[in-house]
């Protein structure tokens, strides 16, 4: 029964996953090219124009497209199976049309070099209008997607009004709520400012547009992380054959993510002129609040791992560690991603302290940081989830179990080297987003060994990505067919679901989140609009002033 009766959901999931894999491959190719380019002494294959084109492609394809499509795939899979509901076929089809269509429209100017503005597109640097419109349609498509999921959820809720929310569904809903908190003001700004800027050279205020961008930019990171957290909460206990250590704490964590993931964007603007220290302090305090659900997750998953290790016969303070199923690629991928999330969290708290931020701002430290979070905590978790989902969706066994097992370890080792080197060399002041960091020979000599170490680590985890995609491709083409139906991991027995408690009423928390967001953004926007805007005319990346 598990595989049948979900035809259009399965079709959606398959298309979304394949599209996400293509994005990962292309984005990864850009990644390795730019890594080599910016390391002195490595093969330099790009000119300046190509470098920033590749960097824009890398950011957009990996931070937005790969993650968004994979997350939509998991969301459909989880919600339809866990709640045993059907999703609207029309809404899913519109979603695919808009999200894939929008991506392709934005991809054209990126690839032709007419949108070398990076994935943050800070105005008044100007891209071709298709870049902004394509991105806008992609985001609108995700709203249609959210509607499909919420519609199905509401149907389920009508049928089972008193049941507690299943944990994976709660993770998906949290992800979508955060996305819906984050995106509307961004779309508003793009339509109000950036599209007219691209079409008729309308001057725009830098601080205003940046504040809208980072209003979206921080919750974006929770849009990546919450699905990974959901996979850990859901799959790690299953793989260990135990219950999660604390179901309540998991739910509290989701609610805190809903509450505090958005009103913190100014921590990306600590070094911006025109934002008062008071507003920056307010967002710092809220940022420390949103660190708490991550810490709750860290404890909960660690305690679950210990429970599993002890059940398997592990003794002593650390003996349980060796009893964990490290030979299972899904477990290894998820757990290694979780460990890297811990380190990413540590450097994140450092970034969030404005007394330290000026040391690392816009240096390679930041690049080291987010390759641990989105680049590993999310990406490696999604890869592990692929080993679980792809056989069930496509009815084929993973082509090579050995490749699948080596892959997460290789990613982990490569990333450890890459990110350590980038964190350290960032402290020495190497700027990010820069084609050439030799500065005509004036760059401090202590940069070089760390840059080379970073390049070595990057090649290792890039190679792990190649193994992953090759294995997936071979699985789809020539994996052994699975004949007997596979049990679906997500299917639940509703009679065993406990009764709903206060922790299952998301509405209250969404309301509270809106209040906190309004307060947190009232302050900077009052400053920006109260003072009066100071618009600047657009300029192309080639340096052409338009007005």
């Amino acid at each position, binding site marked *: 029964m598990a595989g049948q009766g979900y035809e259009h959901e399965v079709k959606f999931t398959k298309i979304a996953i394949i599209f996400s894999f293509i994005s990962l491959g292309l984005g990864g190719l850009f990644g390795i090219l730019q890594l080599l380019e910016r390391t002195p002494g490595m093969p330099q294959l790009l000119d*300046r124009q190509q470098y920033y084109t590749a960097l824009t492609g890398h950011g957009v394809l990996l931070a937005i497209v790969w993650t968004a499509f994979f997350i939509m795939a998991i969301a459909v899979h989880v919600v339809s199976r866990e709640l045993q509901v059907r999703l609207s076929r029309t809404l899913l089809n519109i979603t695919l049309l808009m999200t894939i269509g929008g991506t392709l429209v934005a991809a054209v100017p990126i690839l032709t070099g007419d949108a070398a503005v990076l994935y943050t597109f800070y105005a008044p*640097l100007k891209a071709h209008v298709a870049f902004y419109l394509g991105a806008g349609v992609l985001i609108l498509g995700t709203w249609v997607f959210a509607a499909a999921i919420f519609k199905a959820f509401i149907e389920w809720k009508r049928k089972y009004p008193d049941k507690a929310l299943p944990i994976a569904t709660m993770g998906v809903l949290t992800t979508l709520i955060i996305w819906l908190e984050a995106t509307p003001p961004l779309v508003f700004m793009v339509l109000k400012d950036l599209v007219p800027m691209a079409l008729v050279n309308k001057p725009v205020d830098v601080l205003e547009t940046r504040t809208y961008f980072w209003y979206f930019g921080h919750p974006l990171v929770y849009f990546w992380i919450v699905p990974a957290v959901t996979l850990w909460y859901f799959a790690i206990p299953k793989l260990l054959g135990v219950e999660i250590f604390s179901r309540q704490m998991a739910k509290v964590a989701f609610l805190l993510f809903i509450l505090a993931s958005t009103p913190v964007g100014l921590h990306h603007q600590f*070094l*911006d002129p025109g934002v008062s220290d008071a507003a920056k302090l307010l967002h710092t305090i809220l940022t420390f609040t949103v660190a708490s659900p991550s810490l*709750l997750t860290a404890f909960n998953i660690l305690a679950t791992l210990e429970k599993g290790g002890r059940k398997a016969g592990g003794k002593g303070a650390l003996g349980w560690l060796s009893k964990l199923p490290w030979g299972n690629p899904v477990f290894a991928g998820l757990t290694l991603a979780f460990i890297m999330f811990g380190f990413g969290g540590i450097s994140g708290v450092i970034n969030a302290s404005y007394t330290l931020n000026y040391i690392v701002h*816009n*240096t390679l430290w930041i690049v080291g940081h987010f390759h641990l979070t989105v680049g590993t905590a999310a990406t490696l978790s999604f890869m592990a989830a692929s080993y679980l989902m792809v056989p069930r969706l496509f009815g084929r066994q993973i082509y090579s179990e050995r490749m699948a097992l080596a892959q997460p370890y290789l990613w982990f080792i490569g990333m450890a080297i890459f990110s350590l080197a980038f964190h350290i060399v960032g402290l020495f002041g190497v700027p990010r987003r*820069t084609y050439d960091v030799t*500065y*005509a020979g004036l760059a401090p000599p202590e940069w070089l060994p760390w840059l080379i170490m970073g390049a070595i680590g990057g090649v290792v985890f890039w190679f792990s990505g190649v193994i992953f995609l090759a294995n997936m491709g071979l699985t789809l083409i020539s994996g052994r067919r699975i004949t007997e139906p596979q049990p679906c991991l997500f299917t639940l027995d509703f009679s065993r679901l406990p009764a709903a408690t206060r922790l299952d009423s998301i509405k209250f928390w969404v309301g509270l989140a809106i209040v906190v967001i309004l307060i947190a953004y009232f302050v900077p926007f009052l400053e920006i609009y109260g003072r009066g805007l100071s618009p600047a005319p657009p300029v192309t990346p080639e340096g052409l002033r338009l007005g």
Partner: protein
Amino acid sequence: MAEKNELMQEYIWIGIIIAMLTTFLVILGYVSEAKGFDTPSSAVTCDVRQVRKGEILTPGVKEVAPGIYEVNLKARMWAWIPNSIEVVNPKKIIFKVTSEDVVHGFQIVGTPVNFMVFPGYIAEIQWEVPEDFEGTYLFVCNEYCGLGHDTMWGQLIIKRE
């Protein structure tokens, strides 16, 4: 029994989290106050077109009092104006920086000076220069500002006499 034990552990952990985050915030507040920590929060705006014509913020280095320097900088794709700054026995340098075109980032490698530069806004920051800072420091643009971004750098020369 086991349930109770787990609940206890949950509370202990929640306590640790709250204590930890509060400690971080207190340290942050203390450092910020004790060191007179300064972010470029100044709220001075300016007209980009006037900046381009040179009517606002004349670039240059001025010693306004013994050891106190005022440095006016303009960012332009792709140069800092001026791209060479020389100061003798500085105690404090006050930077006032704006851009003629797009967003740039001003960072003096090996020092705490690092902030964003916007067209339409004048960023202002003060740096209390420690006594042992001497020699030539590279300064760069650390925010992507178009294709020539990596060529946008200069030098700060600190002389001690």
